[in-house]
């Protein structure tokens, strides 16, 4: 079975972003960029499927600028076999990414597609579900366990009230939650080897997909700052303030 994994290049999760002075967006110049953490988990899961002999090839795909090659190389260093960059300078929305991925799915015919549940820049949490709709596949979102069994996959999902397990017909779409696995680090020899692995470049146009945004960003602002608080010296003082000043207890 071939597993397709979709990875996004985003600002590193440790960076606290700041809004541009002209309120047009956030300032990412010089910001450290990394693979979206949920995508790292997706890559790890695919590699484990290969190590278990369930998958025979792991293909990684990213939609984004030329620099997204680095993200694909990282995935190759972790153990993916081949990369596809769908290159565009456009800020592609989740629907656009899902449409691009739909074409890649048509070409590659994977048995399983794994995505992150959420990109930590847009915080959208949409692409996997959209791809599932466009390909007519079942979806196992927010997965904390994935068990492939012949013609189907059992996915345990993290839901608001606890956990839910669903069984999906293959091919299917899975999106990862944080507790699915603990991603490995790439070793230096594997980073070197990854440089020789195949990485193909396409464009949305060559795939026949229109990725123009559908939603206009009118402005981006900093959130309201919280007023500076006070240090209390004892529990008694704390309770006093909660009662008298805050009136919340």
């Amino acid at each position, binding site marked *: 079975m071939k597993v397709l994994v979709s990875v996004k290049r985003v600002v590193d999760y440790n960076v606290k972003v700041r809004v541009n002075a002209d309120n047009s967006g956030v300032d990412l110049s010089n910001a450290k960029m990394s693979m979206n953490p949920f995508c790292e988990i997706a890559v790890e899961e695919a590699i484990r499927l290969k190590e278990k002999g369930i998958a025979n090839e792991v293909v990684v795909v990213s939609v984004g600028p030329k620099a997204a090659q680095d993200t694909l190389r990282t995935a190759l260093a972790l153990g993916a076999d081949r990369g596809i960059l769908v290159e565009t300078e456009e800020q592609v929305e*989740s629907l656009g990414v899902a449409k691009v991925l739909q074409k890649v799915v048509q070409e590659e015919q994977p048995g399983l597609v794994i995505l992150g549940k959420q990109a930590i820049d847009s915080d959208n949490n949409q692409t996997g579900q959209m791809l599932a709709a466009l390909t007519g596949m079942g979806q196992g979102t927010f997965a904390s366990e994935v068990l492939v069994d012949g013609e189907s996959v059992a996915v345990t999902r993290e839901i608001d009230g606890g956990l839910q*397990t669903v069984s999906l017909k293959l091919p299917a779409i899975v999106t990862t939650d944080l507790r699915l696995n603990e991603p490995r680090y790439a070793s230096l020899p594997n980073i070197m080897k990854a440089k020789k692995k195949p990485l193909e470049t396409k464009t949305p146009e060559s795939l026949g997909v229109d990725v123009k945004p559908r939603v*206009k960003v009118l402005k981006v602002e900093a959130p309201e700052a919280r007023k500076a608080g*006070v*240090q209390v010296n004892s529990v008694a003082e704390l309770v006093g303030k909660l009662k008298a000043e*805050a009136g919340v207890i």
Partner: protein
Amino acid sequence: MSILVIAEHNNVELKDATRNVVAAAQAIGAEVDVLVAGFSCSDVAEAAAKLTGVRNIILAESKAYEHQLAENISALLLEVAKDYSHILAASSTMGKNLLPRVAAALDVAQISDIISVESPDTFKRPIYAGNAIATVQSAEPVNVITVRTTAFDAVSTTGAAQIIKVFNDIDCGLSAFVSDQLVESERPELGSANIVVSGGRGMGSGENFSILESLADKMGAAVGASRAAVDSGFVPNDMQVGQTGKIVAPDLYIAAGISGAIQHLAGMKDSKYIVAINNDPEAPIFQVADFGLVADLFEAIPELEAAV
């Protein structure tokens, strides 16, 4: 213009979140209908009919909808949601699972997690873990939106909407429910509690969470946790507060043994009052706390319980 709200429920009870989503729908300003899709869920429809300002309840009962499988419910929506200008659901795991599938099937963008309605096509939503707020305008014929429930005050229950049954029964055969492991709790729900008491890695173990639970019970509070506490196996995943867990905005949030990573703050910094108890005076949580107490939580929490 009319709006369809997807009810959140477990076939027995209507979840509070629905009341907040109806409030968001009313902020958009149009007739509001509520879809109750499930199995043997007429009680839920009755409860939804009482939501203030709702016109019709659309009730679709079928085994295929019992477990809210997105494949089947989105197929149902394509049938029943044809004439609506907006489709809204809570930004819960149910809403997040379902609405992008519906949007893509309709070939429209989806707008996630709105915190305000500026006009019928313009909304605000947090991005980058809440470190920025974007104002976005949609040009889509149908606006498919998930709503951050803590940002909208729940509607009351003085209504008397009409219940209209539809007899769709669509099982796509793509997915099947196997089992669930739901966490039963007598405490209020995290998302709607007035007081939330959360513990982090500093709690040290799952057993130690009992001191927080006991404080929570005395205060009528819900219990939450940081990701580190969940990852360490102290408590189940449904307790995680944060960018990628639950968003809470209670009147009072007490964080014990939580450092205050941006991903955690994203889930609680809209709380009215924040109390931080941490033995490290440099912990970033103190920067957002209204009241900070530098102390060992194992002493402070029992003392607090005795004092409230």
